């Protein structure tokens, strides 16, 4: 899914909407929500492997974002800022969760565009990552599934860059042993 940086021609930019939202305009908040909700929801589902917890994380993420919107220094950075908030929400949810059987309902979460190979790979990855602790799991998902750079992962997860590199390398090594490949970069 393409990150919705701006709403297209004629539509107000994220920066303009952020400024209006900070001024207390509810319509601007709603516009920001509708513009970014699908993107961050997809991110949350890929990180969590389930729709309902992902939806909770997105809801909490938007509430947190609108409350702290006045602290956002660069209004143009709203999409990445919102992504980092949602990532933290997913991490928080995973840490609070009790251990349980997380069988991935791929039909519920995958879009129609997803090929059979993509679905199989996603299920394998999720199943294998169930045995990996946080934040290693999220770091690797961000690296492999979201194709984020190490720097972006470090920023999103509040982990140092060196730690991110080390953890990514370790997980990739394991995946290679399992014949699952690794990140492209």
């Amino acid at each position, binding site marked *: 899914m393409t990150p919705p940086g701006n709403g297209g021609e004629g539509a107000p930019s994220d920066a303009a909407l952020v400024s209006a939202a900070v001024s207390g305009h*509810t319509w601007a908040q709603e516009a920001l929500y509708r513009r970014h909700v699908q993107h961050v929801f997809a991110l949350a589902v*890929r990180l969590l492997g389930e729709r309902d917890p992902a939806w909770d994380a997105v*809801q909490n993420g*938007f*509430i947190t974002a*609108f409350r702290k919107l006045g602290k956002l220094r660069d209004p143009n950075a709203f999409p990445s800022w919102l992504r980092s908030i949602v990532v933290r929400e997913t991490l928080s949810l995973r840490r609070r969760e009790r251990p349980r059987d997380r069988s991935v309902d791929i039909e519920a979460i995958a*879009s129609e565009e997803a090929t059979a190979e993509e679905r199989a790979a996603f299920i394998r*990855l999720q199943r294998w990552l169930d045995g990996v602790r946080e934040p290693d799991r999220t770091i690797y998902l961000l690296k492999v599934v979201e194709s984020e750079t190490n720097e972006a992962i470090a920023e999103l997860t509040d982990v140092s860059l060196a730690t991110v590199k080390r953890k990514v390398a370790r997980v990739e090594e394991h995946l290679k042993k399992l014949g699952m490949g690794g990140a*492209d970069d």
Partner: protein
Amino acid sequence: MTSRPFPIAPVSQRDVDAGWSSIKGALEEKRAGAWHWAWVAAAIALFVAVSAGATVLVREYRERVRRERRAPIEQPTPRDVIPEQQQGAVGPAPSGTGSLSPVVPTADESGRADHDPRRPRDDDARAPKNGKGKGGRAAGVAGGPATSNRTAGASGGPAASSAAAEGSESRGYSPLAGMSPKSQPGAAAERQAPDATADGDAFAAGSAARARGDFKAALSHYERFVAKHPHDEHAGIAAMEAARILADHLEQPAKALRWAEKAAELADGSVREDARARVVQLLGTLKRTGCASAQRDFLRDYPNSVHTPRVKRDCGEAP
């Protein structure tokens, strides 16, 4: 691994709308919560302010009531200890001016009557001999002559003066005369009395300060009272008290003389008699030339005064 993020089925429009309603409600709830706490904080602040104000008002009211009650009950007046027949005899002193109040207020007439200079005090007992130094105790205590060591301010009216001529016990207010102010009944209350700064309370504040031995403060209160209320019936008493403090405690006979002269102008009755006797005494102390004439006038106006024997000696030679 795939080169694109795994495609996720989008959220339905209905869920998006419901999600927005949920987020909006949470934000408004948060805003309402903030307002709620702001109102609570404002209410608490208002309550504290009102409580503090009410506390101050109640305290002031209680202190006022306490002062009003204390004056007549705890501070015995000279009239309280004068035998009834003498009380009946006490009246307006012969006055040359007639412009001021003819009668020195009694305890029944005013709560300030306890400041009547005829009230015996230890500063009376320490009255200077021959205009200098400190004298012995009030004669009434020992039963000796009441007139010899008394200061001018300690005399009664003409009737009381004649009673004094008959015997010291009858005019020495012996129950209180030998006691220091701190040991007199009501002295504790006087010590506890607040130093009121309002002009109307300056007289009471002066008396309270004098009772606890703070003569400078007492002088200040009396001076302010006279300055603000020169026509008050207590102005003469206050001036006389100022003169007494200056002469007996602060060693300022020149200033004391001015206040005694002012007291002689403002006061009437026995206080005026006391003031004029004090004027003669201070003129003698200061060796002023007017001493003889003041002495002559006093003896002419008050031939039977309790102060007469001393006034005759104040100028250094018999008139």
